[in-house]
């Protein structure tokens, strides 16, 4: 049984100018123990997808689709009903997590408050908490401190422990490393993997724009563009053999250590993503795609290529496949 099943999820943003179709038909599933990387640039809908699975609030608007967590439906459109799931079954490590800690409360108090909202006492989870703190290399003294006394990396780790305390089935990590220094990034990313290895979480979605990071820690990568899925597959496949033109262009535009302008001038992707207020019909990447066909005026289906679960939404690939 898949831990997470999402079918045709649509979430739009209500704005004064109309509806922004930020997430327009997301369908995917996650197996137990899977770390899925959700990659894409700003405005592609990855944060919308992540956030809608846990807290769908205005201006986000649920338009359609179904979500199943461990076989049971997840009522993401109903904020009241979702209360029972939040933190216990689905949890989130938000972007800028360090700002999520109440500066007037000691860390201990923050933990106690969250547990109290679930009817639990801090005493009950203290042993488990100790082990978690050890895992993320935080000394226990941190509990007695105020958030302002901790560094950015420490706060991030505190939030990580906080979010996973009740062993949620699904953990969503939204750009958790972008605000951190390079050396802390690696440690924090590895800790996320450790959480999965120790079965604190059953499935982990890592939302980031940094594909290199996903190569290091994710099992599968899902690439999004302008509210739709472009490609999904195992990390190795996506990186070594990207099929969707967008994925290919994106990967080839990443400067890596070892590449220099003098020797290899990398290319970006000219143009910019379409406005999601009135998105173009057909493939949304069409305008910027160097390989666009006539058929791309019609929306390409997100088809499965083979038994490994590799999926691409591109007419060119679909054509070859047939």
């Amino acid at each position, binding site marked *: 049984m898949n831990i997470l099943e999402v079918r045709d999820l649509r979430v739009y943003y209500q704005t004064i100018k109309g509806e922004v179709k930020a997430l327009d038909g997301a369908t995917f599933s996650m197996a137990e123990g899977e770390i899925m990387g959700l990659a894409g*640039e*700003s405005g592609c809908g990855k944060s919308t997808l992540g956030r809608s699975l846990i807290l769908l609030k205005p201006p986000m608007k649920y338009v359609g689709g179904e979500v199943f967590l461990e076989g049971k439906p997840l009522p993401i459109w109903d904020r009241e009903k979702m209360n029972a799931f939040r933190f216990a079954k689905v949890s989130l490590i938000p972007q800028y997590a360090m700002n999520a800690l109440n500066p007037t409360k000691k860390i201990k108090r923050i933990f106690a408050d969250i547990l109290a909202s679930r009817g639990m006492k801090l005493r009950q989870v203290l042993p488990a908490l100790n082990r978690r703190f050890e895992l993320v*290399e*935080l*000394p226990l003294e941190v509990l007695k401190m105020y958030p302002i006394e901790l*560094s*950015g*990396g*420490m706060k991030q780790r505190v939030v990580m422990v906080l979010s996973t305390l009740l062993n949620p089935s699904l953990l969503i990590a939204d750009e958790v490393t972008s605000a951190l*220094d*390079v*050396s*802390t*990034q*690696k*440690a924090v*990313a*590895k800790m996320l993997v450790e959480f999965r290895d120790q079965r604190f979480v059953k499935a982990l979605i890592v939302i980031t*724009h*940094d*594909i*290199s*990071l996903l*190569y*290091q820690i994710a099992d599968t990568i899902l690439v999004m563009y302008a509210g739709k899925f472009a490609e999904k597959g195992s990390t190795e496949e996506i*990186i070594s053999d990207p099929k969707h033109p967008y994925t290919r*262009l*994106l*990967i080839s*535009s*990443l*400067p*890596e*250590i*070892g*590449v*220099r*302008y003098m*020797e*290899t*001038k*990398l*290319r*970006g*992707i*000219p143009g*910019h993503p379409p406005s999601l207020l009135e998105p173009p019909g057909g493939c949304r990447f069409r305008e910027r795609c160097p390989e666009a066909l006539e058929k791309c005026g019609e929306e390409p289906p997100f088809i499965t290529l083979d038994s490994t679960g590799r999926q691409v939404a591109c007419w060119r690939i679909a054509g070859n496949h047939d």
Partner: protein
Amino acid sequence: MIELEHVTKIYRLGTFGQRALRAVDDVSFRVAQGRVVSLIGESGSGKTTIGKMILRLIPLTTGRILFEGNDISALSGRALKGYYCKVQGVFQDPFSSYNPIFKADRIFRILKTEFFPTIAPQQWDERIREVLSTVGLVPEEVLGKYPHQLSGGQLQRFLIARALLLDIQFLVADEIISMLDASTRIDVLNLLAELRNNRGLSILFITHDLSLAHYLSDEAIILYRGSIMESGDIEKVFQRPLHPYTQILLSSVPRLDQKWEETEIRLKVQEGKRTAGCPYYDRCYLAEKSKTCAALKPQLVEAEVQHFVACHRFREIPKEVKHAAGQTRGTSLT
């Protein structure tokens, strides 16, 4: 062209200024004409402070900054404006760099009022079109718009265009890429490289991202807590890092051609109190309670041609360094 001599910046904290924070500690380096030098460091390294001091936005505590041999802190009035004609900056957050209640191209108008008050409007428009095309922007798409109507990439390029209007010789680029999307990043980087190649522009590229630095720069300066740890020709620094900190940085960067080493990064609870010795002492795997490292701050020495390092024990770094820049995706490097 730009030279820093023993520049130090100490911030006084507390109501009566009792505590001192050394943001920049005895930093000296040089940026020659037509060279891109990367100032690499994490948060708290002092890199932004250095950039702002070069732009005369923050005063120095001690030391000198020379532009073409002249001390810039002596400049004022007309002379200062002359300095800004040649030295400009672009900052990290494109959205914060514009006054939100005005249109974006007001930044050009400001330049015209301050630097070119007598120029004919037609000529000015010509110049604007010229610089806009240099940075790859279509005038009709970006002129007359408010900042919130433009994208981050467009705004950054707009700022570079503004700097070009002045025909500058030196640009301070402070983390200008970090807030841009992956697909726009490379275009802005390429633009900077072209400016260096075609116009001989010198750039101080301040960043925390080593891959970007490696792509663009000729030289690198690794900064940690206000002091230079290592510097020199970028290939040498990245291929054979001699400072433990540089090694850690290089090994922490996520890459697409190899997985992270299984070596552990030890995270400290707090960065220890500043001692008189090496600023990196409490995180250094090489120091191993060495008394020298704890007590004596290492000076920059020339380990090989165009490669400097500030470390007492750099010779103990094994020749076969696992953390160095490797070969990527078929590009072979000599």
